[in-house]
C-alpha cells in the first residue's frame, strides 16, 4: 500500500525537477552571457507561420465556423456507435448490419440536408 505512494511521490518529484530545470536553463544561459540580449519590436511580436499578425488576439470568430463545428460535432459523435458495432460485427450479423445502415442513412440524410441548405458554403 505505502509502496504505491512512493511511486507517486517519485513521479511528483521528477515532474517538479523537470519543470524547474527547464525554467532555469535559459536564465543560466543568459546569466553566463552565452545568449545575447537585444530586444527589438520585431522580435517581440508574435510569430505565426511566417505571417505577420493583424489586430488583437481576442477576436470574434466568424459565425461560419460555428456551422461547420455543428455539422462536424453531430457526425463525429455518431461514430461512437460504429466502434462497438465494428468490434462485434460477426456476432451481430445481418440484423446489426441493417440497423447500422439505418443509422448511416439517417446521418447521410442530415448531411444532404446541411449541404442543400448551404451550411457547407463559405458565403
Amino acid at each position, binding site marked *: 500500500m505505502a509502496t504505491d505512494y512512493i511511486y507517486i511521490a517519485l513521479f511528483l518529484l521528477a515532474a517538479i525537477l523537470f519543470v524547474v530545470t527547464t525554467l532555469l536553463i535559459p536564465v543560466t544561459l543568459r546569466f553566463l552571457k552565452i545568449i545575447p540580449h537585444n530586444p527589438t519590436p520585431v522580435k517581440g511580436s508574435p510569430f505565426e507561420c511566417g505571417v505577420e499578425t493583424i489586430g488583437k488576439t481576442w477576436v470574434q470568430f466568424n459565425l461560419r465556423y460555428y456551422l461547420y463545428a455543428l455539422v462536424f460535432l453531430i457526425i463525429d459523435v455518431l461514430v461512437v456507435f460504429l466502434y462497438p458495432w465494428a468490434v462485434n460485427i460477426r456476432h451481430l450479423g445481418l*440484423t446489426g448490419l441493417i440497423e447500422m445502415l439505418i443509422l448511416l*442513412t*439517417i446521418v447521410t*440524410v442530415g448531411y*444532404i*440536408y446541411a449541404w*442543400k*441548405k448551404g451550411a457547407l458554403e463559405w458565403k
Partner: protein
Amino acid sequence: MNLQLFIPELTLAIFAIAVILLDLFVQRKGVLAGVSVAGLVISAGFTLTMWGSEPQTIFNNMLAVDSFALFFKLLFTGIAILVILASVDYASKLTNLQGEYYALVLLSVLGMMLMAAATELISIYVALGLTSLSLCALVGFLKDSKSSEAALKYFLLSAMVSAVLLFGMALVFGVTGETQLSKIAQVIQAMPLTNITDNPALVLGVVLLIVGFGFKIAAVPFHMWVPDVYEGAPTPITAYLSVGSKAAGFAVILRIFSSAFGLPEWLSLNWGMLFAVLAAISMTLGNVVALPQTNIKRMLGYSSIAQAGYLMVGLATVGILPTADVLGQSAILFFLASYTVTNLGAFIAIIAISNKTNSDLIQDFSGMIRRAPGLALALTLCLVSLIGMPPAAGFMAKFYIFSAGVHSGLLWLVIIAVLNSVISAYYYLRVVKVMWFGEPTSTEKVFSSGALRFSLFITSIGVLLLGILPGLVMKLTEAASKMLAFLP
C-alpha cells in the same frame, strides 16, 4: 427479433426523413402537410392492427409492445394529426421552413411513442431526449423575440432537469445493478429493507426521477417554464406541448412507478404520498395564479398546471393502493384522453380566432359569439369541459379520477381537488362571459380554413362523446392499464 412490431415507429421515422427530403426538392410546400398526415395515419393504422395481441418486447426488452403502449401511440398520433391540421394556416407564415416544422412534429411524436413503450432506463432517456429536443426547436420556431425567449427558457430548464433525471437513473442503476424496469423491481423486492431510511441512495434516486418527470408533466414546483413557454411558443405547438408532452410524461411515470417501484409497500406508500402532496400544491397554485391572467394562452398554461394536479391524484392512488386493482391507472388514462380532446379543441379555436385578431388577450375575444358563432360555441364547450361540468368529457374524467382517490382513502385530497374545481370555474367562465355578452370590437366575421374547422369538429365530437358515452373508452383504458402489471 421481431421487427414488424416496430413498424409504427419505423413508418414515422421514414416519413419524417421523407418530409425533410421532399422539402429540399419540391417547390409546392402544400404537399408536406398532406404527407405528414398520411404518415401519421399509416402509423396509427399499423398500431391499430396490433391491438389486442399478446404483449411482447423487442430489442432485448428495451421496448414493450402492449396495450398500454399502443393506447398511448394512438393518442399521440391522433394529437399530432390534429395539431398538423390546425397549423396549416399557421405554417404558411413560416414560408421556407415548413418542411422542418412538419418533420420535427413527426420526430417528436416518434419520441413520445418510444417513451410510452420504453421499459428500460436507457431507452427512456433516449426517447426523452428525442422528444424534448424536437420540442425545443419547435418552441423557438417563429424566431421572433418572444418565441426565442420561450425556446431558451424551455431548453435551459429541460437540459438541467434531464441532467438531474440522469443522476437519479445513475443512482437507481447503482443500487440495483439493473436498467430494466422489471429486473429493478425484482432486485428491490429482494432487498431486506423495511423502512425508507434503510437505503438513502435508492430513495434519492426515486426522488430525482420524480423531479425529472415532474418537469415534463408541469407539476409544481417544477412548473416555472410553463406559462412563459406557452405564451411564447407558436400556438399549435403550445397545444401540442400541453397535451402531448404531458401525456408522454404520465406514460413514463406510470410505467416506471407501477412496474419498477410498485412494490414493496414501504416505497410505494411514500412516493404515493409525495405525489398526493405535489397534486394538492399543483392544483391550488395553478388555479389561484390563473385567476388574474389576461393572456388566454398564459391562462391555459396555468390551467394545465392545475390539470396536472388533478391527474396526480390518480398517481397517488396508484402508489397507495398498488395491487388492489387498476382503478388509478385507468382513471389517469381516461383523464388524459379527455384532457387531450378538450385542450386541443380550446387551442384550435384560439388559433382560429387569434389568426384574425392577431392577439391572445382575453378582452379581444369580446363578443366572439356574433363574429364567429361556431368557434365560440366550440371554445365554450371545451372550457366547460375543463371546469368539469356535464355533459362534457371533463366531468366524467374528474368523476372517475376522484372516485379512484376516495376509493384509496385520499378523501382530503379529493376535497381539495373539488374546491379547486370551483375556483377554476371563475376564470374559465370569465372567458365564456366575455365571448357571449361582451361587445364585439368589430363587426368583421372570423373565417378559418377547412382543415382547422375539421379538426375543431373532431375534437368537439370527442368532448361530447367522452362525456356522454364514456364506457367505450373506459374499456380501452382498463385493458391498457392491466398490461402495466405485465413484466417483460
